[in-house]
């Protein structure tokens, strides 16, 4: 008797930037989020980072930044607040010191950039063009910033479109635009990114919050406010991914509170094509790879051939389509 052939491995690949000059095919949809994985080298001592779908590097600015005074982090129920203040080595050092290391790696590295102006974003994209080891750009237009008096930079669709267009003109790399959850109309901001030429939108950056030390009656963070991340924000992320993915055509990357395989699956069913793991890595450095290993099995057991078959299955339109079949 002949045994049936083994199930083929499900296809985990995700394409970002179908229309970019240099499209990026991720081997799998599990990435690690900017600011939670340094420049990729630090966790390499602990886990096999080469298996990740992609690494998004710490937000980089044109000039090196010293960051905020401490305390910069504080724990919250099922989460944490951070007010790092974008401490980083500056784009020139990133290109000269970090990119050569990445060029030796299998795992693609996407560089998260934060500009002070449209021109600065465009200039930074220029600096990254053609640099071996850099496989994509994620625009951090969502980090509450010194620019514009501490307001979230791209609160409005117009600025988002303008920044995205300016960078699009300068880069052939796949372009992700990372969006703040705290904008008046997130759908229009995401659409503006798409219209401006983004290849994907990353949803979401952190929520603004604070904590007060009751003994001293002072805010715990020296910066007073910080960005909330971790499992506490997961349902908020899920809802925004569910909402936005019904209104944009480009892939949505879900980020915010992902800590388990189940979280990743929920995000994909809600419309994400890929996910990023952030704060959960601090708690358990193996989180991202465990999600990846579980994902393969979960897809197979559902009878799906590829990871893309899961994306958006929870949407009413997809549910109706399935019912009709």
């Amino acid at each position: 008797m002949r045994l049936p052939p083994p199930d083929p491995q499900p296809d985990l690949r995700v394409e970002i930037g179908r229309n970019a000059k240099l499209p990026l095919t991720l081997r799998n949809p599990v990435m690690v989020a900017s600011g939670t994985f340094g420049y990729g080298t630090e966790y390499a001592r602990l886990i096999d980072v080469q298996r990740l779908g992609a690494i998004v590097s710490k937000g980089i600015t044109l000039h090196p930044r010293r960051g905020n005074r401490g305390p910069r982090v504080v724990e919250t129920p099922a989460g944490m607040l951070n007010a790092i203040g974008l401490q980083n080595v500056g784009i020139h050092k990133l290109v000269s010191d970090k990119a050569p290391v990445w060029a030796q790696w299998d795992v693609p590295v996407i560089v998260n950039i934060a500009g002070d102006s449209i021109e600065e974003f465009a200039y930074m994209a220029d600096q990254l063009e053609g640099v071996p080891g850099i496989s994509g750009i994620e625009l951090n237009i969502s980090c509450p910033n010194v620019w514009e008096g501490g307001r979230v930079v791209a609160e409005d669709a117009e600025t988002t479109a303008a920044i995205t267009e300016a960078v699009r003109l300068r880069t052939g790399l796949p372009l992700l635009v990372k969006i703040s959850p705290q904008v008046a109309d997130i759908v229009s901001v995401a659409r503006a990114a798409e219209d401006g030429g983004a290849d994907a939108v990353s949803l979401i950056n952190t929520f603004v919050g604070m904590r007060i030390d009751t003994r001293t009656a002072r805010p715990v963070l020296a910066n007073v406010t910080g960005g909330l991340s971790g499992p506490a924000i997961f349902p908020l992320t899920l809802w925004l991914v569910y909402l936005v993915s019904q209104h944009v055509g480009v892939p949505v990357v879900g980020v915010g509170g992902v800590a388990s395989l189940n979280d990743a699956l929920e995000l994909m069913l809600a419309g994400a094509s890929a996910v990023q793991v952030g704060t959960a890595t601090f708690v358990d450095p193996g989180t991202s790879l465990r999600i990846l290993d579980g994902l393969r099995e979960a897809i197979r057991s559902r009878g799906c051939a590829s990871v893309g078959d899961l994306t958006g299955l929870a949407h009413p339109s997809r549910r109706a389509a399935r019912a009709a079949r």
Partner: protein
Amino acid sequence: MDLFSARVVDNEEIMPSTHVLTLEAARAARSASPGQFLHIRCGDGLSPLIRRPMSIFRTDGTLLQVMIRNVGEGSSWIVRRQAGDMLDCLGPLGRGFRVSPQARNLLLVGGGYGVAPLVGLAERALARRANVSLAVGAAASELIFPASLIPEEVEYLVATDDGSAGYRGFVTDLIPERLVWADAVYACGPLAMMAALARIMRDLAPRKPAQVAMEERMGCAMGVCLGCCIESTRGPLRVCTEGPVFDIRQIVWREEAAAIGTRGPGVGGHG
């Protein structure tokens, strides 16, 4: 440095609210050096979420000890662990004390649970026949680290705020007269104590080697989140990676930093 699960073999309350946990952790015990720390998960759920940094207290063969002061949610979870329980640890992390082989006379200064890394340091120093003085400060006698846990060869000096044991006053008051004897000074304790020590060293012994183990709130403890940075003369440094032990002259003490910096929303942004 590893991510490992350590079996608790003993948990002893050595003084009020302070426990020493003995862990079976062969690899970490062998590679650890005094001043390094573990990042310990407090439970397996989502709260408390972030690991807690704890100094390595002592090592002996395959055993590793931590000394935990019960001050909040995370530490109280750790001190409730019993023999047989498992503890999820990351480490050893950071850079420990650096002791020059020429240093014969070591002066150690501790406050509160800051004694923890100093005991391990004293044991290593004695093993290579150095002389060790350990000066410890506390609010009152019942909070003084028990002398029975300190090797006999160590000269143990005690200061209490209320005079209930040893010298009445700050532990740093005991330092100046011992500076001639000491080849090097190592400290761990409350920020105010270490800042006072920094002033003494600046004024009385500006060239004598002196190191301090610093504390800051941590996220990753792996050097990626930049949550634990403190001000140094070289710019911000990560306590988890460049530290926790620093040259005392590298630190910009917070009172001074406060004068330079500004405090308020939107100064530097999140992320």
